[in-house]
Every structure is written in C-alpha cells, then in structure tokens.
C-alpha cells in the first residue's frame, strides 16, 4: 500500500504541478464564476427575457424582429382572394407582400433577391411556394398554409351562406387542460441530463487518452525497465490510472462545482433562466458522481492497458481508436434515446458496464427505475471495473518490455494466456 501511494503521489504531482493544468482549471472556473455574477452587475433582463414588461417569449422575439427590415414576399393571386389584405396581415405582421401578375417576373425577382419567397395561389385549396435557396428552418409555407385554410373556410361559408365567425368559434373551440406529473418530469430533467451526458462523455474521451499517454510515456522514455524491476507492475498501473482519475475529477469537479454554486448564489438575478441546465437535484448529482466515477475508472483501466500496448506516445491514438468508437457509440445511443429512457435499449445499456455510466444515470434522472436495478447495475460496474483493472495490470506487465510495433489486443490476450 505504501508503494502504491508512492506511485500515486509521484504521478499526481505530474498533474497538479503542471502549470497548464492548474492554470486552465483556475481560469475556466474563474470565467464561469464571473459569468454567473454578471446579472447582478449588468441588467440582462432583455437578453434573458425576465423583465416585467416583456415576460412572454413571443414578445421578446417580436422586439428583436422590429429592429430588422421588413421581409418582402411575392404574391401571384390571379383569383383575387387576397384583395383584402387583413387576413394576410393578421398572420404576417412584418411582411410586405408584393403583387405579381405573372410567374416569370416573380422568379426573376427571387433570383435578384428582391423578394425572399413567392406564393402562387392556384385556387382556394392549392398554392405553390417558390423560394430560391431553401433554408433548414424555412417554415413560412406552413404559415401561408394556415392562411389558406382559413381562406378556404371563409369561402366555403360564403358559398353555403353560413356565419363564419360562429362556426370557427365553435368548431375550433379552445380546449384547456392542466398537467399533473406523478412520476418524473422529463421535460424538467431533460436539459441537465443532456448536459451531463455530454460532460461525462468529454471527461472519458479527454482524460482517458491522457492516462493512456502517461502509461505509454514510460515505455517511450525507457524508464519502465528500472520501474518494473523495482516494483510490482500492478502498483504502477493502479497508481497511474487512479492519479489520472483524481486529477480529472479534481479539474471537472472544481469547474462544475463553481458553476453550480455560483449559479445558486445568483439564481434570483438570473431569474431562473438557467434552471433547466444548472439547477440539478442533489440525488441526480449523486447518481452522476457514482456512475460517472465508476464508468470513468472502467474506461481508464482499459485505456491504461491500451497505452501499455504501444511503445511510443505517438502510437497511443492508434491503439485507443477502437475504444474511442465504443465510447462514441454509447454516447450517441444514450443521446438519441434520451426521450425514450424507459425503452428497452436504454434498459439494456444501463446494466452494461461500458454504458451504465450514462444510461443508468439518465434513467435515474428521467425514467422509472427500481432501487434494486440501480444496485445491480452499480455492482456490475464495480466488479467489472476491478476485473478490468486486474486484466489491465497483467496486460501492462506483459506489454511493458515488448518494444516495437503496437501489439493488438488479440495478441495481447493470447500472450497473457500463454504466460
């Protein structure tokens, strides 16, 4: 144990005495801390949408729109449906409609960007939407569709001699409802779960490669020969991996804690604007910490073993590539299933040690999960982490004095078997 702590301390000093490591931690924490205090100093109610006059988000958007120029749309209305512009104007507040009599001149103006889009009304239930470059979120046609729907109803009522106002009031009667959430409200927990899944993914990708590099560096600088003849290699690997893990959690912990604490202090000033990301319930934070640390260590040992398979630090990326793919895969699966946390895919993932760190965590945050499920998943994670740790120590021992080309995992396991 004393030897382990010798290695651990020596390796940890590598990080905490590293100037760029210390400076980046302090700087990021400082910036986040300062940003959190900004609403106390500067009135940000406009940007945050928290001022009293404009509480509704729509108003805020309008306010922004007013500053811009009016959009110009073309209209080819050969039937004269829109002779009275009041219907159009009620839907398009800041749009100027330009009348065209033929399609050709409309297309020319579109090309010259005189107008942003053009509508060719064929009859009361058909129109064509002309646009030069279609944008990702160009949703103007749907608004026009609504206008046309109303127009169609109006014409129908006119033809049948019905009272349009009366029919629309009763036909489209607003139905009110109230929601009572008995379990967990996914819409509440969604954003911080999303954020934390990204955070843990980044921690694993960034810091595990750092650990793999630190393992490979001793083969690279040839210190390994003296080391393995001085001490059992499992102390070396465990010391390196755990010091890397502590350094990682120290850095992330400081930054995350600064963000959360400073936000809590200034929450009123922010008007709760960042609640969805930064107001995380304690039990979710605990789940994140427990499964995050477990999952990180699981991967850290694997990356450590992979680092031992190469003799130059330049080769680390080559060796860890396949592992990066697995981490990415887990990340995308969890992220894409975030609105389906009680689905079978997430359930399976929440028990696998390679994915439970984020899958089980989102289930705890947003889904239905039994206590025994959490316990079993955590036990699986802990046991497999210890297993991977021992395997990694063996691979490390075997790989340490084999120089030359990177050893494949398959060959490494084969060698282990033979030894």
């Amino acid at each position, binding site marked *: 144990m*004393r*030897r382990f702590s*010798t*290695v651990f301390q*020596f390796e940890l000093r*590598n990080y905490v005495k590293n100037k760029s490591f210390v400076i980046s931690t302090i700087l990021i924490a400082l910036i986040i801390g300062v940003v959190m205090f900004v609403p106390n100093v500067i009135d940000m109610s406009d940007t945050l949408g928290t001022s009293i006059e404009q509480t509704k988000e729509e108003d805020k958007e309008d306010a922004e729109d007013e500053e811009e120029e009016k959009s110009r749309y073309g209209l080819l209305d050969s039937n004269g449906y829109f002779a009275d512009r009041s219907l159009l104007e009620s839907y398009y507040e800041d749009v100027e409609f330009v009348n065209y009599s033929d399609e050709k001149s409309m297309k020319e103006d579109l090309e010259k960007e005189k107008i942003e889009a053009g509508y060719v009304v064929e009859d009361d239930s058909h129109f064509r939407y002309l646009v030069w470059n279609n944008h990702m979120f160009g949703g103007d046609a749907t608004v026009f569709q609504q206008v046309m729907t109303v127009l169609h109803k109006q014409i129908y009522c006119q033809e049948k001699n019905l009272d349009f106002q009366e029919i629309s009031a009763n036909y489209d009667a607003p139905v009110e409802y109230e929601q009572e959430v008995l379990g967990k409200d996914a819409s509440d927990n969604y954003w911080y779960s999303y954020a934390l899944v990204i955070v843990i993914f980044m921690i694993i990708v960034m810091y595990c490669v750092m650990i793999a590099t630190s393992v490979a560096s001793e083969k690279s*600088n*040839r*210190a*390994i*020969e*003296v*080391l*393995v*003849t*001085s*001490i059992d290699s499992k102390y070396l690997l465990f010391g390196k991996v755990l010091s890397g893990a502590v350094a990682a959690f120290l850095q992330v912990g400081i930054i995350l804690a600064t963000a959360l604490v400073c936000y809590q202090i200034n929450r009123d000033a922010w008007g709760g604007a960042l609640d969805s990301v930064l107001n995380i319930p304690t039990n979710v934070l605990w789940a994140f910490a427990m499964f995050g640390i477990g999952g990180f260590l699981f991967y850290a040992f694997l990356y450590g073993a992979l680092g031992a398979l190469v003799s130059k630090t330049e080769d680390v990326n080559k060796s860890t590539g396949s592992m990066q793919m697995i981490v990415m895969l887990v990340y995308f699966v969890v992220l894409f299933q975030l609105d389906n946390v009680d689905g079978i895919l997430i359930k399976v993932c929440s028990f696998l040690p390679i994915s439970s760190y984020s899958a089980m965590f989102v289930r705890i945050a947003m889904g239905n999960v039994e206590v025994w499920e959490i316990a079993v998943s955590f036990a699986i994670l802990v046991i497999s982490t210890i297993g991977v740790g021992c395997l990694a120590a063996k691979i490390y021992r075997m790989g340490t*004095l084999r120089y030359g080309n990177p050893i494949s995992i398959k060959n490494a396991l084969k060698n282990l078997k033979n*030894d």
Partner: protein
Amino acid sequence: MKLEVKNLKKSFSGKEVLHGISFSVESGRALGLLGRNGAGKTTTIRILMDVFRANEGEILMDGKTFVPGKYQIGYLPEERGLYPKRKVIEQMVYLAMLRNVPKKKAIANAKKWLERLEVAQYENKLLETLSKGNQQKVQLASILVCDPEIVILDEPFSGLDPVNSQILQEVVQELIEQGKIVIFSSHQMSYVEQFCEDIVIINQGEVVLEGNLDEIKRSYGKNRLVLKDTERTVEEFSEYCKQQLSDVLTVNGQTKEAVIVKLAEGKTRRELLEKILAKNIEIEQFDTYKPSLNDIFVERVGD
C-alpha cells in the same frame, strides 16, 4: 553471498532464445557477462530480475531459491531513461522509495551519490536539461540510492568521456571492494578485464566459455607461443615456420609484431627451441602467448 544461475531456458513465441544458461557469482567478485548483440545477455538479466519467467532452470542465492524482491538490487539497464520532465532529486527519491527506502534516507543517499558522481549541482534541475553523460551519471546514482546488495550494470561506460569513465571505474571498484555482487555486461573488453575476476561468454543463447579470467587466459596460452626473428618480416617468418618447422608446430595466427604458433601434438617447448637453434634462426622473441580478452572473445563468438 553466492548467486547461482542454473540451466536457464527461455522461449519467445515458440522460439527458444536461451538454451540453458548457467553461471555463478559471489560477493566481492565481479562477473563479466559477455556476448555479441542479441546473444541473450539482457534476457538473462531480465529473468534474473523476474521481469520474465524462465521456461526452465532455476536461480539460487546461497542454495535457496532467489527472490529478487527480498534483496536490494541496483539495475542499470542498457536502454537508459528516466523522467525527462522531472527534477533529478525528485525522481531519484521516487525510485528509491519504490524500493522501500524511507524518504529521509532516500534523500540523504541521493545527495550522497550525486556528490560522489560529481553531479550535485544538477540536483534541482529537470533531467532533460542535462547533457547525455550527466544524465547517465544521474541514472547510475539513482540505482545506487537504495544501497544495493546486487549491482547489475549493462554497458555502464557507453557514452561517457574519459574523465567520467574514470569516476565510474572508481565507483565500480569501490562497490566490488564493499563486497557487493557485481554483474557487469559490456562490449568494452578492457573494462571487463579491469574489474572482473570471472567471465561468462554467451553466444546465441548458450554459454560458450565460463570461469576465472586468469585461468582462462592461462589455458589459452598453454601450448601456444609467440615467436619473432630479427631478420624476416612477420609474414615471411610465418611462411618460414609453416614450411620449415611444421613437424614441431602449427601456425595459429599473427599479431602485429610476432607469429602465434601452437606446439604440435606431443612436442615440448624444449624440442621447439632445439629445432629453432638447429635451423640457426636469429630468434628475438620466444614467449608464452597471453591472449587479451578481446582475442578470446572474437575467437569464441566470431563467425
């Protein structure tokens, strides 16, 4: 203490690289472990250090199974390297502490050895800022910090200038005098001759020569003589010996100044001398052949 290596065999991926290595070394005596590149020296040392496990054979210390962890061993590998970005003293203390030396003692010993090897001024410098020779000395100092009972030096003199070699020679001599077991592997035969009483020559995974260096030299010189005459060049004399003296000797080779000959089966030196006198040769040198370790080495492991 007596360390015995018995019949070590080792295979890597099915190919046997050591075919039964045996030798022994005692306290206060240095053993020269010699062999060409790739002969199996480093593998033997690594088995000794328990980095590899031998497929066969055993290692004994005073008759009992040798457990490297029970002894303080200072091992200077041929592939040098420490932490370039750490302070000299910091990594020396670390390496000593890995070997269970308490921190205070480790610091004191580290300072002592840095002083002894004349690199004390670099104590708080990063290793990478030192010259190659000084890095070598730091590495040597770092293996001595744990007060080793067994010292294994793999090519300790490579890369050192003559002054630094002198310092290192003195240190090695002191270690031997202090009664440590010293195993010394080098291609620089002059150093081996200077320090080692015993040698082992390994060739292609086999011991081809083992024993006391003086005895080996003597036995090599047995029945072999160096001859020189005043009138002819070495080449001419060598040719003359082959033609005129073939009944009492065979020509073995030549040095820069003299011809090396071997007495024919059953012939004595007296008979050779009588023959030389009878032939009226103006003999200038008639001496026992004393081969250098270099000659022995080349003869034993050369192609």
